[in-house]
């Protein structure tokens, strides 16, 4: 469980990035943190793996105060995949990249092999195992970074903009993977601007603006509230935009996905035909 209490954080250059954030994320929850550039999203999640410590306030991970333990200890439980994969990758081959942390955590050779094969398969990277990460496309490098964190099986997984540079299929796979993690009672936290992706996976949304949380709730509620979204520089999902424009008909407003949209529209057309 992640518990933040009244967290303020100021960078050395005096930029106050967090201004009193309090939240609780339970084990097995799937949370999307959204908001405009510079809202403090990445700063907030860096508090969850101890990369940053609150200037005032506290963060507890499974009851442990993050100021009391090292980043290395926290990292075992909290995996973090950076926004820009180039900030994370350094090995000669994809295989070595993924095995690196496993070796560091002292896993046995046999387990390393198994985890490696599993992660390569899951992220469609098997054909690149001997390739240098820097030979790969932006989207593929992103997947290598993800694989290297997944391989050590952390309890809490944090992904900073996981869908950047990913095509539609990869996004579908990512979604399935997140659902699988959820089923295993793992906590998944994504920081993202990708409204359409969020509309498809329907997590709990934390909306941030200028260092504060301005909305906290299920996707269907938050993503259909245009006033609050605009404040956070987010555009409603396209399906929601259609329904907002048709608000003078007997249609619900809280629609974010294609299948619900179809159902509601067919119902209305049928009712009108009678």
């Amino acid at each position, binding site marked *: 469980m992640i518990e933040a209490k009244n967290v303020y954080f100021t960078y050395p250059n005096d930029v106050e990035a967090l201004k009193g954030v309090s939240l609780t994320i339970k084990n097995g929850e799937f949370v999307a943190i959204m908001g405009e*550039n510079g809202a403090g999203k990445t700063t907030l999640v860096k508090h969850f793996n101890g990369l940053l410590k609150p200037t005032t306030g506290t963060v507890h991970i499974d009851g442990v105060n993050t100021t009391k333990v090292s980043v290395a200890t926290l990292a075992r439980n909290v995996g973090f995949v950076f926004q820009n994969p*180039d900030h994370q990758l350094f090995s000669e081959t994809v295989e070595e990249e993924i095995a690196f942390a496993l070796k560091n955590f002292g896993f046995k050779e046999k387990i390393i092999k198994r985890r490696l094969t599993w992660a390569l398969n899951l992220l469609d990277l098997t054909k690149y195992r001997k390739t240098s990460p820097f030979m*790969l496309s932006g*989207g*593929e490098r992103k997947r290598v970074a993800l694989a290297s964190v997944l391989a050590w099986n952390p309890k809490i997984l944090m992904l900073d903009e996981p869908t950047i540079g990913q*095509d539609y299929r990869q996004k579908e796979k990512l979604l399935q993977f997140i659902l699988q993690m959820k089923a295993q009672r793992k906590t998944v936290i994504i920081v993202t*601007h990708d409204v359409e992706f969020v509309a498809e996976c329907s997590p709990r949304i934390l909306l941030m603006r200028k260092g504060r949380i301005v909305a906290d709730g299920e996707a269907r509620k938050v993503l259909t509230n245009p006033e609050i979204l605009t404040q956070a520089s987010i555009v409603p999902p396209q*399906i929601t935009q259609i329904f907002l424009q*048709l608000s003078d008909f007997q249609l619900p407003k809280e629609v974010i996905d294609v299948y619900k949209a179809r159902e509601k529209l067919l119902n209305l057309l049928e009712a009108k035909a009678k």
Partner: protein
Amino acid sequence: MSIIKTENLTYTYPSGTKPSIRDVSIKIEKGEFVLITGPSGCGKTTLCRCFNGLIPHFYQGELKGEITVAGLRISEQPIYEMAKNVGLVFQNPENQLFALSVEKDVAFGLENLGVPREEMRKRVDWALNLTGIYDIRERAPHELSGGQQQRVAIASVLAMQPEIIVLDEPTSFLDPLGAKKIFEVIYDLNRKLRITVVLVEHRLDLTARYANHIIVMDDGKIALDGDPRKILGSEEARLIGVGIPKPTRLYQILQKDRVSLSNTIPLSSDEMAAMLREALKNQ
């Protein structure tokens, strides 16, 4: 004459075991807004690197086939010559920025072309304003967030006012409203100044509405090439794994349900909402 034309273009990176693009034959006309899309690793970025001569002059490797851009044969032109005609915004802005201030980065290309000082001032301010970074013009690019760096990279290219702008996922780090504003700026330049735009994107929900030409690549080859409405409405595009915009998808699904809708395939929420309004009124 097409402003970009390739014939059987095939390219292999020096360390590659097989070609990254194969037998690519395309034509792009002056003033078009072209969207290039396709699964990750399909060769989109590689193709863009051919448009300004980075391939083969910088990356080397083996280039076969023909390519002419703005009437020039790439293989016979140095990169700096191509840079006058083609502005390229890279996927990762860090690879593109190097100056000590935002303003200097944006001015760099113009200085190289020997643009007179006053004209340079005007164009730099113009580009800074269009991309919303005038207020941070004195900051160091490497201190900025990914999204702001992308704005700087775009401003540097716009300031040059090249005939062709090639953008490789240029707004991936920007929030949706920020990305939308940048695309509107580019679309505006495309229409008013007839600058040819080639945009590589996965996120068709944000961009399909601007395009009048779509190229879908798959595994190094051209899979589909033509009118956006036709292509995005087709079953093939979906099967290749192109992210069909949700309004287009809803249209397809409702058509299967035999809901009578107009024949023009919608690419945006506005178009789909207007179409549904008609259908609901006529019931």
